[in-house]
């Protein structure tokens, strides 16, 4: 019986080139800068931790109080300059990535990002 060898199609070179060009885009560097600024913002990090704690508490006895405080924390968080800058930078990067994905998907003949999503073990 004759078997036909099918060489594995490697996309590594194209991946590296594409990633390099994306990382050189102003929207990408602005996003990384905004991310680092948010990470370094102690007030933002404190509010994130408080928000996470309140989120857990909302399942227990003082749910009402926790929910009210959560909304206050969220409001304070949304007003921070580092948060606003991060959200704006993320929006710009998303726009870029969606455009890149549209080109990839058209060439590939299949939606790339949608079908490349990892699913959780629960099918989510």
């Amino acid at each position, binding site marked *: 019986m004759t078997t036909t060898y*099918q060489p594995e*199609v490697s*996309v*590594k070179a*194209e*991946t*590296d*080139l*594409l*990633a*390099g*060009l*994306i*990382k050189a*885009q102003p929207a990408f560097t602005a*996003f*990384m800068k905004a991310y680092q600024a948010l990470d370094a913002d102690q007030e933002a990090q404190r509010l994130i931790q408080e928000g996470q704690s309140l989120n857990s508490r909302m399942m227990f006895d003082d749910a009402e109080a926790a929910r009210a405080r959560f909304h206050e924390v969220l409001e304070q968080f949304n007003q921070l300059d580092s948060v606003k800058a991060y959200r704006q930078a*993320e929006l710009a*990067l*998303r*726009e*870029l*990535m*969606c*455009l*890149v*994905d549209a*080109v*990839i*998907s*058209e*060439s*590939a*003949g*299949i939606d*790339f*990002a*949608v*079908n*490349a*999503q*990892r699913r959780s073990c629960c099918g989510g």
Partner: protein
Amino acid sequence: MTLPEDLEKAARAFGLKLRDHPLIQEYLAAKQKLEADAEARALDERCEAMRLDLVARQQAGEMLPRAEVDTYYALNRQARAHPLIAERDRTLQAAKAYLVQVGQDLSVALGVDYTALAID
């Protein structure tokens, strides 16, 4: 926003390389066979339209009537049993497994989660 020429060229080359993979080729062939069959295509489209409608209504807070859900399940079983739809589904799952790996490699190269950012 439009993409810079070199980035668009690289994205296109990346997509074309994906297309070359046997698993993507198998999926495209199965998809073409399905689309060429009017009856199978109509069944597939009817099932998908019903699914999207039920999902949208459920997400809007509606309690879906049991009878409608049962009708959808019956139609879905019929669609999944159709050989052309089953083949398209099988090859799509295989293609997805490949694309998940490629997506992960791209995310590692970028240092950010590509799929989280590239889906509208």
